[in-house]
């Protein structure tokens, strides 16, 4: 079968390039923006996902994992006494100030535990070992900190809240949503640094015994710790994500970006398809005169929209995937999953077909008698 749709589309190359570029631009905008957003959100729960705690005990209404609040560390004892709990440990998460060699002060997000290895924190150690944190005033520093703190190396020292700490190793992937670099240190050292941390913790990590009913253990912990919140790993991750999405306007901003991307795509595709339809009105009249129906013409326009959608998506998605390593080099994670890409593809097809509807209206009323007009 001869495809008048494709032949017409490729015949006018400039218009075709504009149409495909419009679709590709919209696809890139949506994929990269949403990918960046998802990458940021991924950071907001990165420690929750990697720590192998089944339940998190937090102070009441803690909004997200980074903005921790203190409560008495003796809560861990009550947690340990609950049937079904295999292990429970205190975790301190706290913002502190680090002094840089150039004299500047920067913020740092401290994660402090008594036994890091039991909780898979940190999960990606590049140099040194979490066991080294037990040796005096020492820290593991995430490599992403180099962006904020400048270059650093194992063996160097940095001052945190007036106390000198030796960098005994480095980690990777431990970057917080707030972009504040994460350092890992011993629990007691962290308590020593801040008055309000003495005798207090910010979280209790709870691991269930094999076969224990998570809901029952959670309910019992809530009963025994009435001044705390007890959340499953998923609940806590969702709450942390929701805080950034809903409370900061990021979600709305992302929604507007996606909407604008789709709008740009629709306008460009609709405009080029409509112009093309108007310019080919006499051809469509001929199709009707020789026996073609409106449906046959809708198919032509629909096929053109579909071709533009497929090629535009391929270019846009290809560009988005190519740009990921470049973004990663500046520590921006563009998170693109096959599922989300498939969703954007379906959206692109719908967007282009929707744009073609404007042309449908124009060609629906074509009078085949126009073929006799000169």
């Amino acid at each position, binding site marked *: *079968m*001869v495809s*008048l749709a494709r*032949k*017409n589309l*490729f*015949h*006018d190359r400039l218009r075709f390039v504009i149409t495909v570029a419009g679709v590709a631009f919209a696809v890139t905008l949506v994929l990269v923006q949403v990918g960046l957003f998802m990458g940021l959100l991924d950071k907001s729960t990165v420690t929750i996902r990697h720590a192998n705690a089944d339940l998190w005990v937090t102070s009441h209404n803690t909004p997200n994992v980074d903005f921790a609040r203190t409560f008495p560390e003796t809560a861990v004892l009550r947690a340990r006494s609950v049937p079904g709990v295999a292990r429970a440990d205190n975790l301190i998460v706290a913002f502190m100030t680090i002094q840089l060699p150039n004299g500047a002060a920067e913020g740092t997000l401290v994660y402090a535990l008594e036994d890091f290895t039991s909780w898979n924190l940190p999960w990606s150690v590049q140099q040194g070992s979490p066991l080294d944190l037990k040796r005096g005033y020492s820290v593991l520093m995430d490599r992403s900190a180099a962006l904020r703190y400048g270059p650093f190396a194992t063996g160097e020292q940095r001052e945190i809240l007036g106390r000198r700490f030796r960098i005994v190793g480095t980690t990777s992937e431990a970057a917080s949503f707030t972009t504040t670099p994460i350092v890992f240190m011993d629990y007691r050292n962290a308590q020593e640094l801040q008055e309000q941390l003495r005798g207090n913790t910010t979280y209790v990590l709870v691991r269930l015994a094999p076969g224990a009913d998570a809901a029952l253990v959670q309910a019992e912990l809530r009963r025994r710790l009435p001044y705390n919140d007890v959340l499953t790993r998923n609940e806590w991750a969702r709450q942390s994500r929701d805080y950034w999405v809903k409370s900061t306007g990021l979600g709305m901003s992302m929604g507007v970006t996606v909407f604008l991307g789709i709008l740009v795509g629709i306008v460009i595709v609709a405009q080029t398809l409509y112009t093309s339809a108007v310019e080919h009105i*006499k*051809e469509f*009249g*001929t*199709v*009707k*005169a*020789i*026996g*073609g*129906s409106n449906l*046959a013409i809708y198919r032509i326009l629909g096929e053109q929209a579909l071709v533009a959608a497929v090629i535009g998506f391929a270019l846009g998605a290809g560009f988005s995937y190519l740009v990921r390593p470049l973004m990663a080099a500046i520590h921006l994670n563009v998170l693109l999953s096959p599922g989300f890409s498939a969703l954007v593809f379906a959206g692109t097809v719908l967007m282009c077909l929707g744009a073609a509807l404007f042309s449908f209206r124009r060609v629906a009323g074509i009078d*085949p*008698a126009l*073929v*006799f007009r*000169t």
Partner: protein
Amino acid sequence: MNDRVLAVRDVTKVFDEGRQRVHVLRGITLNVDAGELVALEGPSGSGKTTLLSIMGCILTPTSGELVVAGRPVRSRDEATLRDVRRQSIGFVFQQYNLFPALTALENVEYSLNVRGTGGRAAHAEAKRVLARVGLGDRLDFLPRDLSGGQKQRVAIARALAGSPPVLLADEPTANLDTATGGQILDLFHELAKREGRGVLVVTHDPKVRRVADRVVGIRDGRLVDAGDEKAAA
């Protein structure tokens, strides 16, 4: 008559233009038989294109009868009219109306696709009719690379494809030089005589008298010199 492929009887066409009613056709009766080439002549505004549109099932008459290939066309339903056009009528237009993005072969093949023939059958038929009009060596040429006469031959091949019994041509030589126009008229004559098609050519071209079996005039919506038409009906 068994070999009558196209007939209109007492056809009128009235257009409403605002508050005015414009009578474009006033009781036209005209027949075209298989193997006959009929020329329809008339000045601008005489109603010849409207008559051609009605005989081609593109417009419906206000009153009167239309019979195409022995099939009375009473319905005003677009699907029925489309079906008649698809099965029985081939059109040749003054401006050729070829699809610029399609080659000569594809232009013909596409029209066969629209008529319901696809695949290899359409491909073979398109090649056959293009060879028939003398363009067997121009199959892959785009319209822009063809001369006016060659374009009109492609348009004729497109009209011939699928072997419709009726060919309707609207000013087919208007955009051609004298020699080429003459060749095109000879081709219509040949198609009528050798293939037994009924051909109606609307034209201003006096050369058509050389090849036409009959010349019918139309003035102000009425046939002139058409007394024999009424008698024949």
